[in-house]
């Protein structure tokens, strides 16, 4: 190693190789997304003749058509409403339960906790069919609640599990002091414990929001009315109706992914932390 710091010295071959290999793989993996976006601006003819090349001119009318024909505004609204409501329910109920499992003594506590753990290990497909019948009897099919209730119930297991672990890492002393000073149990929970777990709550919101936003199976089976669908199942139906109109489907794909990608790049730190948190421990 020389002591002179020459900014313009030639980097060692191993470093060039490291950059070259990494960049090739990463760009190769990211390219299909770029291809999707610029292909939405090509005409059907252009796509057919040269799948690879850039569009001759930038046309944005496909985006408009896809947005209107695909009812994308409605799909976005449905997805937002269903995901938002489910996440709110999960995080609220899971937080209450996780607090009790971590901090309070009551008969059967550990057994009840194990019951929730079952939900962690089961694949969701296991209950989809009986759930379908059950929702039909409850007259909930084809309403947003046919997704909101099952989504939030399924997400409870993982959320309670992770939040409980987080509560366990916090010191008990503050809560005990508040309790001794005469705060009610609920008051202690609301004003003392809840603010302390705020970072974990945000992580849980993000994690659940991504999972539920992307959920396909239930939304495909429990919602039959096209105008009530969420984005994934709506997009799939749209493809079913227009699968020969390539530029239209490319545009619909772009419309449904690009906003999510932008959101991801803006909040990537939290999202990556949230997704990784679910699997570590």
């Amino acid at each position, binding site marked *: 190693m020389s002591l002179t710091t020459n900014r313009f010295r030639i980097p060692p071959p191993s470093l060039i190789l490291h950059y070259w290999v990494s960049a090739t793989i990463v760009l190769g993996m990211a390219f299909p997304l770029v291809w999707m976006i610029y292909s939405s601006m090509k005409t059907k003819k252009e796509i057919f003749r040269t799948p690879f090349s850039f569009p001759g001119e930038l046309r944005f009318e496909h985006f408009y058509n896809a947005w209107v024909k695909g009812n994308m505004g409605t799909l976005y609204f449905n997805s937002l409403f269903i995901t938002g409501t489910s996440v709110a329910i999960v995080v609220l109920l899971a937080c209450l339960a996780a607090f009790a499992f971590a901090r309070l003594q009551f008969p059967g506590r550990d057994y009840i906790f194990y019951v929730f753990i079952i939900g962690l290990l*089961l694949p969701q497909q296991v209950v989809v069919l009986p759930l379908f019948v*059950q929702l039909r009897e409850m007259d909930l099919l084809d309403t947003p609640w046919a997704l909101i209730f099952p989504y939030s119930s399924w997400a409870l297991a993982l959320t309670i599990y992770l939040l409980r672990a987080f509560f366990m890492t916090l010191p008990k002393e503050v809560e005990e002091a508040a309790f001794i000073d005469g705060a009610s149990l609920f008051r202690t929970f609301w004003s003392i414990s809840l603010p302390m777990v705020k970072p974990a709550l945000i992580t849980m919101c993000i994690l659940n929001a991504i999972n539920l936003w992307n959920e396909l199976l239930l939304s495909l089976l429990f919602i039959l009315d096209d105008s009530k669908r969420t984005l994934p199942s709506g997009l799939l139906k749209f493809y079913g109706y227009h699968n020969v109109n390539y530029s239209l489907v*490319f545009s619909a794909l772009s419309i449904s992914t690009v906003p999510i990608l932008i959101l991801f790049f803006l909040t990537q730190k939290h999202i990556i932390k949230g997704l990784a948190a679910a699997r570590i421990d």
Partner: protein
Amino acid sequence: MQALLFVLPALIMFGIFVLAPLFSSLYYSFTHWDGLSSPEWVGWHNYKRAFNDDIHLSSYVHVSIYILGTLVVEVFFGLVMAVLLNSDRIGFKLMRTLFFTPVILSMVSAGLLWKFALDYNYGLLNAILKSIGLGSFVQPWLSLPETALLCVTIISGWKYAGFFMIIFFTAIRRIPNSIYEAAIIDGCGPLSSFMHITIPMLRENIVICILIAVTGGFAGFDLFYTMTNGGPYNSTEIPTTWIIKMAFDRNQMGYSIALTVIMTLVVGAVSIIYLNVTKRKDVIDY
């Protein structure tokens, strides 16, 4: 008793929408039922039928191949990329973010995108093959029984390798640098420090990641449904796609619920066996 009030709302939701269908599926699996009329008790009939249903049996072969494939293209590739992208030099943070990007897409978007990319006439892959003079390799990738399952597996890798990369990357950052420095002094090359330091130090993470890939593989539905829906000629049929077909295309609710019960038992058994086998019983030598 106040404590129960904290748990009760969650327990009620969980009971109605997870436990109730779980237990009713046990009952329905012993019935002949089209999903509408009243179910009729048939004993073990559905289970016997399941073990004579060739497509059902082959779906387990397909999902096993798929899972083994994902161990390579998701877990192993993710691990390699975690090592490769583990650098503080300029650009590597951006490359990690880009590599992670497919993870946040929905399976439907990823599946449809690749359905286009693999298309025979206007797909990206065939266009690239033609342009580099490998025109003879051009295939209708998703319409051939020989290549369809392989393609779906690789797309799954494209989608999820970033997820495993981040988990391994976080873990690699926790390995003390001094171990690597000592290894370099002892004359250890990059490959042998990967084999003898990185892999043993990440053992716990690797065990968990394999479990995630295996259980996630059994639960895989979205990608298969979007890309091939079991076709061509049932060559990519996996248990979940077959179950949904049986239930909703053929209205055999009783039988398909029996298939879900079998799948639950298989996933449960595989996880328990796996966790017992990988239980730390050996001492690792560094």
